[in-house]
C-alpha cells in the first residue's frame, strides 16, 4: 500500500487555563491516492478536529500529517476543504467565490482568460454555471454547497477534505449531492477524506470507513473496507447484501460497542 496521505501518531490536547482535555489519541491512518475514505463517529469525538489538523487549520500536539511524504502543518490549497456550512463569502458572486482560490493557486501558471475558463469549467462540473453571477444569499443551501465543492475542486487539491458537507441539507438534496460527489470522484479520481455522522452516506460513498471511538481520547476503533463495485447505484445498493452487511457493521460499532454516553 502506497501512503499518499499519512496520519502519523496524531495526539491532540486542548489546554484551557489549568484544564487539559485529550481529544485525539494516537491516530494512525494511511490513505492511498484516489481513495475515498470516510471518518465516522458520534458528535464530539474529535473527527472535525482531526480534519482541521489535516487541513492545517489546527496543529496536532504530537505526531504529524504527511502528504506525499512531506509534512504539512499549515493550511494550503493542496488540501482544499468543503466546509459544513459552505462558508461562501456573501459579498462575492458564485463566480468570484470560486475565482478567489483559482486566482491564488494558478496566478503564475495560467493566464487570466484561462483562469476564468477554469472557474467556469468547475462550476459546470457541479452544474452551477447558470448561477455564476448570483450571490450566495440568492441560491439554495444545496446550490451553495455545490459552489463550495466547485471552489475546492478548482484548486486542484491533492486531497479533498469534506467536513460533514451534506449535514445541513434536507434528505432529498443530500442524496442528490451525494450522487454528484460520487460522479465527480468517478470522473476525476480525487483522493477524498470525508467527515460524516451518517452511516448510509459513509457506506454509499466510501472505499473505507474509519470508525472513531467516543472522546475524550478518541482513537480509531475500526476500519471497514467497503467492497462494493463502482459506479454504485443508490437504488440497487438498497437491497445489496454487501451494502447491508457493511451498514450493519458500522451501526453495531456506533450503537452497541461505542454508544454515545451523553445522549442516553
Amino acid at each position, binding site marked *: 500500500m502506497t501512503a499518499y496521505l499519512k496520519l502519523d501518531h496524531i495526539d491532540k490536547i486542548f489546554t484551557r487555563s489549568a484544564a487539559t482535555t485529550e481529544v485525539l489519541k494516537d491516530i494512525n491512518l494511511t490513505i492511498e491516492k484516489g481513495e475515498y475514505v470516510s471518518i465516522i463517529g458520534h458528535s464530539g469525538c474529535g473527527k472535525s478536529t482531526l480534519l482541521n489538523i489535516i487541513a492545517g487549520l489546527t496543529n496536532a500536539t504530537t505526531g504529524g500529517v504527511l502528504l506525499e511524504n512531506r509534512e504539512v502543518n499549515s*493550511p494550503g490549497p493542496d488540501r482544499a*476543504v468543503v466546509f459544513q456550512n459552505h*462558508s461562501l*463569502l456573501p*459579498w462575492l458572486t458564485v463566480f468570484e467565490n470560486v475565482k478567489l*482560490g483559482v486566482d*491564488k493557486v494558478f496566478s503564475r501558471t495560467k493566464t487570466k482568460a484561462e483562469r476564468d475558463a477554469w472557474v467556469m469549467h468547475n462550476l459546470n462540473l457541479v452544474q452551477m454555471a447558470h448561477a455564476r453571477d448570483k*450571490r*450566495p444569499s440568492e441560491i439554495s443551501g444545496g446550490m451553495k454547497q455545490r459552489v463550495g465543492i466547485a471552489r475546492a475542486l478548482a484548486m486542484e487539491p491533492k486531497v479533498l477534505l469534506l467536513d460533514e458537507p451534506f449535514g445541513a441539507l434536507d434528505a432529498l438534496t443530500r442524496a442528490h449531492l451525494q450522487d454528484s460527489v460520487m460522479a465527480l470522484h468517478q470522473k476525476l479520481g480525487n483522493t477524498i477524506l470525508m467527515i460524516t455522522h451518517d452511516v448510509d452516506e459513509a457506506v454509499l460513498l466510501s472505499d473505507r470507513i474509519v470508525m472513531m471511538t467516543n472522546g475524550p481520547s478518541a482513537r480509531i476503533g475500526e476500519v471497514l473496507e467497503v467492497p462494493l463495485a463502482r459506479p454504485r447505484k443508490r437504488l440497487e445498493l438498497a437491497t445489496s447484501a454487501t451494502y447491508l452487511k457493511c451498514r450493519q457493521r458500522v451501526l453495531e460499532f456506533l450503537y452497541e460497542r461505542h454508544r454515545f454516553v451523553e445522549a442516553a
Partner: protein
Amino acid sequence: MNMPATKIEVETATPAAVAAPVVAMTLRRPPRTETYARMAREIAVRVIPPLIVIALLALVWELVCRRAGSALPPPSKVFRDTKELILDPFFDHGGIDKGLFWHLSASLQRVAFGYSLSAIAGIALGVLVGQSVWAMRGLDPLFQVLRTIPPLAWLPLSLAAFRDGQPSAIFVIFITSIWPIIINTAVGIRNIPQDYRNVAAVVQLNPLEFFAKIMIPAAAPYIFTGLRIGIGLSWLAIIAAEMLIGGVGIGFFIWDAWNSSHISEIILALFYVGIVGFVLDRLIAGLGKIVTRGTAQN
C-alpha cells in the same frame, strides 16, 4: 393503486398548462398605469403624514408667537425677514457678508476634510485594535476615556497647538468623529466569522489580500455604522466650533445673527443645518447600503 394516481396527475397538468399563458397575458396588459398608481400611493403614504405634522406645528408656532411682545418670531415673520437670504443664497459682499450657500459650503468643506481624515485613521486604528489583542488591551482604555470628552473641550487645546482657526476646527471634527469609527470597526473585525478566516487560510491569502478581500468586506456593515455615527457627530461639532472660531461658516453665521438680534436668520440657518445633517446621514447610509450589499444578509 398506481393507475389512478397517474391519471390525476395528467388531469391537473393539462388545465395548468393551458391556464399558464392566459395568466401571463392578463398580467402583461395593465402594467404601466398600475405601477404608476402604486408608486404614487407609496409616495403619498410616506410624504403626506409628515407634511400634515409640519403644517400643524407651523400653525401652533404661528398662533403662539403672533402675540405682540413674544420673544421669537412666528413663521410668517421668519419668511418675510429672510426672503432675500432664501431667494439669493449665492451673493457675496466680501468678508463674512455672504449668501447662505457659501456659509454652508465652507462648513461642509471643513467637515469633508476632517471627516475624511478621521475615516481613514479611524478604520486603520479600528483594524489594529480589532486584529491585535495587545493593541486592544493597550489602546481601548485610552479610547474609552478620550471619546467622552465633548467636542468643544478640544477647541482651546487645538487653538493653542495650531494657532489658527481653520486647522483647529478640522481637528475638532476629526477628534469628535473618530471614536465611533474606531470602536465599530474593531467590533466588526473581531466578529469576522472563523469560517471566513479558514477560507482565507486554505486559499493562502497574504495579509494584504486578506485585508482587502475578507476583512474590509466582512466588517463593512459595522464600519458603516461607525461612519454614520461619525458624520452626525462631525456636523454637530463643526457648528459649535465655528461659533467660536468665527469666519465664514454656518456656525458663525448663527452666532453673528444672534449678536445682531436677527432671530429669523437663526431660525432659517437652523433649518438648513438640519437639512444638511439629514442629507449627510442619508448619504453615508446609502453608500453603506451599496457597499455592503450581500454582506448584511447571510
